[in-house]
């Protein structure tokens, strides 16, 4: 009898490998062997597949030797979605389905003992990987057909049971089958997230002209931002409104983000492609795995990746554990995070904006003037707290801004126009992003913040006077090399917001102020402060 080959996909992080499931049924010692680095879920699948085939009124070739090979053999494979490919391979080898029908098709799905299909995590990235390898058709559990259909140019067939799959491959009318239940598990509590974020408007934020401008620049260029200031000054209020300032995701970005959420298992059936930039605000006691990715069993993307193309707020940043702070260095710089564990390495994209917020001291009441300070923290604790605000992670933050509580005279001023709304600011941010998209049309990056340093100075230089001034900052020791690159990127974003062709000394001055935390010029804020 011939060897049957059914295909499926194995994921390592967000990278999918096309896997051939080759099945041979021949004479020999009776038994079933499964080789090619399967994980526990795949090995257990043998029994599920056997019973599923038996209960679909097919016969498992029980009196012969069944050899199942997963190749390429060196790629570690995981996930219960191998079931369907294994079953189809066995049926193909046993002559139950025509081998030609298995060509150009990828099979995804977990089987139950009675031959029904169950949904699996990560359908979107798997289908994307299959599409990239030239596969034209996928069979997925029926509730996930919508998710798989997000990939352009792919023929998606949603199926409910192994019986339907067999009929489909044989070209027969599909038998009826009960609908597939969605992925188990439901949210117990509504999370302080998406829904809430979209209701928040910038027009509710009074004063803080400086910080508002900083937030606008951060949103326009995708820059990381740090907000400091006493408790209750409005840091979180402002940070929560950043996602609203971002334009809708591009098709490409949205596929990436939806794929990550599919991997994380946070995509609910019926969810459309995610089009709004995500927002995540993990608590400072979050574990490393939940924040950066990992976890026991299968490696899952963390909050950092789930905020890809969106905003990750780390409130009370100095309270996060030291190893998390250290581990943030790589994603802040490269826009992706690699989790190495045992023999598997998973890489997830993490190109969100990171917003750090921190109080002046652990209790949050410290002010420089002893007359107003109600801080109760001992000096040593305050020092420890502040120590985390220096060093490599902070050097990778483009914009720092100090937020002071709004003073009464700022609110009672009869000449102040009402604060700008999110829609008004988003229009400017979108215009600035469009300029970047145009400028970087031929390049793999999308925003100023992602532009590599060497490319910046070669292809996107500052005006001569501005470049001289920036060089002087470096030689005077006021900026590190990395700082120079980051200020250069910021200057481009400031220019994009102001609709300036090429950043000059004015834009550079604003960029330097944004990075150093010095107050901005009122003329920069003019348009916004009224």
């Amino acid at each position, binding site marked *: 009898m011939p060897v049957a080959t059914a295909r499926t996909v194995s994921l390592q992080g967000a990278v999918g490998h096309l896997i051939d499931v080759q099945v041979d049924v021949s004479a020999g010692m009776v038994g079933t062997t499964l080789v090619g680095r399967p994980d526990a879920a795949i090995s257990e699948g043998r029994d599920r597949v056997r019973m599923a085939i038996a209960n679909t009124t097919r016969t498992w070739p029980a009196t012969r030797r069944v050899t199942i090979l997963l190749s390429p053999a060196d790629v570690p494979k995981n996930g219960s979605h191998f079931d369907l490919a294994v079953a189809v391979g066995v049926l193909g080898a046993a002559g139950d389905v025509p081998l030609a029908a298995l060509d150009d098709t990828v099979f995804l799905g977990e089987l139950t003992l009675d031959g029904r299909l169950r949904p699996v995590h990560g359908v979107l990235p798997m289908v994307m990987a299959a599409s990239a390898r030239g596969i034209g058709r996928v069979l997925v559990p029926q509730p996930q057909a919508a998710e798989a259909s997000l990939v352009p140019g792919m023929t998606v067939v949603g199926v409910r049971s192994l019986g339907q799959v067999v009929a489909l491959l044989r070209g027969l009318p599909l038998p009826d089958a009960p609908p597939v239940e969605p992925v188990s598990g439901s949210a117990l509590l509504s999370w302080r997230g998406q829904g809430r974020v979209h209701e928040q408007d910038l027009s509710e934020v009074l004063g803080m*002209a*400086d910080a508002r401008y900083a937030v606008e620049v951060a949103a326009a260029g995708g820059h990381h931002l740090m907000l400091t200031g006493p408790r209750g000054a409005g840091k979180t209020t402002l940070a929560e409104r950043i996602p609203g300032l971002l334009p809708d995701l591009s098709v490409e970005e949205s596929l990436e983000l939806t794929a990550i959420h599919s991997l994380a298992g946070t995509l609910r059936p019926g969810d459309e492609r995610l089009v709004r930039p995500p927002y995540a605000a993990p608590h400072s006691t979050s574990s490393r795995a939940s924040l950066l990715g990992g976890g026991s069993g299968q490696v899952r993307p963390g909050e950092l990746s789930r905020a890809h193309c969106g905003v990750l707020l780390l409130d009370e940043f100095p309270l996060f554990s030291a190893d998390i702070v250290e581990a943030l260095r790589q994603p802040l710089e490269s826009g992706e995070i690699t989790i190495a564990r045992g023999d598997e390495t998973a890489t997830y994209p993490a190109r969100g904006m990171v917003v750090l917020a921190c109080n002046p001291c652990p209790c949050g009441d410290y002010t420089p*003037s*002893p*007359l107003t*300070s109600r801080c109760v923290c*001992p000096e040593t604790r305050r020092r420890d707290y502040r120590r985390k605000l220096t060093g490599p992670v902070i050097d990778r933050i483009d914009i720092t801004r100090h937020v*002071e509580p709004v*003073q*009464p*005279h*700022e*609110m*009672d*001023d*009869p*000449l*102040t126009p009402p604060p700008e709304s999110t829609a008004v600011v988003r229009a400017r941010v979108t215009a600035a992003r469009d300029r970047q998209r145009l400028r970087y049309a031929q390049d793999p990056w999308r925003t100023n913040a992602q532009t590599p340093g060497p490319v910046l100075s070669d292809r996107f230089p500052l005006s001569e006077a501005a470049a001289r001034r920036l060089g002087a900052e470096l030689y005077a020791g006021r900026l590190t090399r990395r700082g120079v690159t980051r200020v250069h990127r910021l200057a481009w974003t400031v220019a994009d917001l102001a609709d300036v062709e090429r950043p000059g000394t004015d834009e550079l001055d604003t960029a330097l*102020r944004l990075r150093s935390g*010095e*107050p*901005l*010029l*009122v*003329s920069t*804020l*003019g348009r916004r402060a009224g």
Partner: protein
Amino acid sequence: MSLDDRLARVALGRLAEPGDPRMSALVAELGASRVHEHLAAERDLGGMLSDVAARLAGLDPAADLARAESSGLRFVVPGEEEWPVSLDDLAGAAPLQERGGVPLGLWVRGPVRLDALADSVAVVGSRSATSYGASVAGEIGATLAGAGLATVSGAAFGIDQAAHRGALAGRGPTVAVLACGADRVYPTAHRQLIDYVAQTGAVVSEVPPGGAPMRVRFLARNRIIAGLGRATVVVEAAARSGALNTANWADRLHRSVLGVPGPVTSAQSQGVHHLVRSGLATLVTGGADVLEMVGAAGDHLTLEPRGREHPRDRLTRREAQVLDAVPVHRPAAADAIARTSGIGLVEVGSALLRLRHRDLVVQEEGGWVLTASAAT
């Protein structure tokens, strides 16, 4: 022909650049009417005004005045009830950059009377201010307003604007002194601000109505800002800022000059730092400091900044010495403490009892240790 003093001043104001010290000296000596009469008769006074007769003949000061009054302006001249006598100090001050002298008169738009500005404070600074400077200027304006004092400033971008807005937020009187005619708006972007000030405070200029804001007029204008009130606060000023000119005028007029510091690295604060360093200006950190400086002695006193009180602060030197010798964790007996502190056992014993009374030490098994409040 001979005009009365008031009309003569209107006419002369059309003739001479504002702040020309030669004109104000002549007017001070001869009176406006006689100066006008001499000029109209083309008697050259020292060769300085040769073609003036023709120009004077073309003027109709009475119509000028009537037109201005119909558009809401009033003309205030020295000797009148509303005249701010504080400006008379300008007569005794030497010119600065060839500008000086008492103004011939002031054109005013707005309900605030100029003679009520004796306690006002000028708040000036850079046009290219930072948000920090603007915030401090606003706070000073609001604090002055809260104390019932008027804020005097220009109408430029940056600090001027912030000071006015602070004062307006505090519902206090505010005065804008312009370098163009008081009926004009410069900068034009500040129409709303200037109109609002004209409604609630006063817009003032010595330049006749319709006059353009020329560069040298700003220097002349600064002496009025400095002269009107009791003190001048410079909030932010770069090395060559016009606000420094105002500060120099205030110093020349023996008004207090106050400076708000910024970071030493900030270009916007260099001028202020120089004023403070050269001894010209007194450093202030906000509206409360300004009030203390301009008020009568004993009014508006600010609290002296001081750190939080620590229980150790009130100890005698001996007690402090004993306290230092008491361990944090492992109890030590009185004799060990006496050895460490180098003080006699009897005295240590009584000191420890007093320290225990103050809740700084406790006696445990094996000796004495610090309490939590003493350990911090």
